[in-house]
């Protein structure tokens, strides 16, 4: 067993707001291995971004974080901004969702990449600039030496996200946290940005945490997948296990809501009815129960723990938080949620 790069234990995050206390993360345990690509999937509000921001120490001031986040032998939780400076950018690079707002509009992109370099490396002015151009070229900015002095508003969204990726990989970090890196982009640009991300982790030998609501994005890259719902991990396993034998109805629902290339065009997309629960206060039972087609009485009273699932594929550490995980895992995909159109008959898969 390899030593994990990052070890998150019993992470709990609450926000105090004028409308009451919100529990954004409710006891997460998660570890990240060297050079792996871990996908974190869930709807917005499930706590996946909050997890990443908690690792970076970038949560808003009204956040109350407990538990532990270890990187090597260092505890990241509770570190002061000054101490975190030696982690941020150097050990962990981060990519945010919206490339249109991630770059400071008043500085050239080269300046912003150079700033990331000079935060942790002592290079001469010329070398720093050369390095910035090299990074921009690596992530696929054409004519990078010409464009290095351009301002963010002169770049398209996809190009800006590449700049952000260049910033994240500037100091060869061990981990890159990518928080919905393609969500704000056109579908055609998404693939290119994911490619740039692949280049970044290959070059810096980093582990990648890919946070997204889109299982399709995770499918090509991740070796392990975490599914989050209402601030908890509800399923975790190898990509194969998650994609081919999900053990949690919510994962089934997520899989039903991605378009599949192996469809013969007849199948409609399915959606999970309803919306995620409010995170203010606590309700008893499984948080997914109100939306779950398999709901039984026990689901409304008792919240299931994350337990190992025995399944035929991906037996290694496949866990799910469902009272009926062993039943769910045997069900055929895309059979659980009703077709969203009434007039349409489900063609045989």
């Amino acid at each position, binding site marked *: 067993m390899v030593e994990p790069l990052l070890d998150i234990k019993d992470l709990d995050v609450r926000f105090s707001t*004028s409308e009451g206390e919100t529990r954004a993360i409710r006891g997460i345990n998660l570890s990240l291995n060297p050079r792996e690509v871990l996908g974190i999937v869930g709807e917005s509000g499930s706590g996946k971004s909050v997890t990443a921001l908690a690792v970076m120490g970038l949560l*808003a001031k009204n956040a109350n974080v407990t538990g532990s986040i270890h990187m090597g032998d260092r505890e990241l939780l509770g570190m002061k901004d000054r101490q975190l400076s030696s982690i941020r950018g150097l050990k962990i690079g981060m990519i945010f969702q919206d490339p249109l707002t991630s770059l400071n509009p008043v500085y050239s992109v080269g300046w912003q990449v150079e700033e990331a370099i000079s935060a942790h490396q002592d290079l001469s002015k010329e070398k720093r600039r050369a390095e910035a151009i090299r990074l921009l070229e690596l992530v696929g900015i054409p004519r990078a030496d010409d464009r290095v002095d351009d301002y963010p508003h002169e770049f398209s969204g996809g190009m800006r996200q590449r700049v952000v990726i260049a910033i994240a990989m500037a100091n060869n970090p061990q981990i890159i946290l990518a928080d919905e890196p393609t969500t704000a982009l056109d579908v055609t640009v998404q693939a290119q940005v994911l490619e740039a991300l692949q280049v970044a982790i290959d070059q810096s030998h980093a582990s990648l945490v890919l946070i997204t609501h889109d299982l399709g994005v995770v499918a090509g890259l991740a070796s392990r997948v975490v599914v989050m719902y209402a601030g908890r991990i509800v399923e975790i396993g190898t990509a194969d296990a998650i994609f081919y034998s999900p053990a949690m109805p919510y994962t089934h629902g997520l899989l039903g809501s991605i378009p599949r290339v192996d469809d013969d065009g007849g199948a409609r997309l399915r959606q999970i009815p309803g919306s995620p629960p409010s995170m203010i206060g606590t309700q008893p039972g499984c948080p997914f129960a109100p939306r779950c087609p398999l709901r039984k009485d026990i689901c409304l009273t008792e919240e299931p723990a994350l337990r190992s699932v025995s399944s035929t594929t991906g037996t290694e550490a496949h866990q799910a938080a469902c009272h009926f995980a062993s039943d769910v895992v045997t069900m055929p995909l895309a059979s659980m949620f009703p077709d969203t159109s009434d007039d349409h008959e489900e063609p045989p898969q």
Partner: protein
Amino acid sequence: MTKQASEEPLASQHDVDGMEFESRGQWAMVVRRFVHNGQAMTGLVAFALMLLVSGVYTALHPNQYSALSTAFNQGPSAAHIFGTNGIGIDMLAQILKGVLQDLQVAVLVAAMSVVIGTLVGAFAGYYGGKVDNVLMRFVDLVLVIPVLVVLIMLAHIVAQQANNWFYLAIIIGSLSWTYIARLVRAEFLSLRERDFVEAARALGASDWRIISRHMIPNAVGPIIVNATITVAGAIVLESTLSYLGLGIQPPAVSLGLLIEQGQSAATTEYWLFVYPAAFLLMLIVSVFFIGDGLRAALDPRKNRVRS
């Protein structure tokens, strides 16, 4: 094995009722945020109290503010809690009458500003192009003539009119709408491109209907906030003019006028200056607090939670 999740109705956000519900829910949220804002509620309570007390008092004693007595220049006492002035008039009655007078002017000014500003801004923003250009040059013109110059020029004429608060308010109101106009124009420029406006247009709705039914309701938040701020600004302007002798004229009463009359005696008969000034300050601060509370309630990004 599969079971339909239809026993209990799930929140449906797609039907028309759902949209109604959504918007009603939004306003409920705004009210809730406002109520939870200590500063805003302080402003609201103080404002309501001042309005109530001065309204009730003036209704019960309509002529008290000009009633002479032989109690000249008396300090605060049980009979006259804010004292009396040099000709024996009760200061409390004058101050409360002044509060009402100031509000009368300010509310008329704000109403005019909202109507003119919204119309000018809406037409400029909705039609764009030439209409926008002409209207905005007009706004430039109104802005370039310093408000105080025109106010003082015209107020000088108005000062000679009997019961002149109405004219005064009309003048201030016809010059105070430029900010709301610019704001509404900016809102409309962005609203114009939104889907629901496109949809209304595609359905053949008239321009006026699109403006009045679809766009103005969506810009109403910032308009309300700025109407409140206009009320505060109008009180400041009116009291300043009255202080300079160009606003409300005796025998009518306003807080600015009372301060002007009391300033020379401020060190000896402090009550002639301090109480009107304190009421003027409370009045304006409370309106600003309400305005700021509304702004915060309508634009809660400041204390949002990231997820």
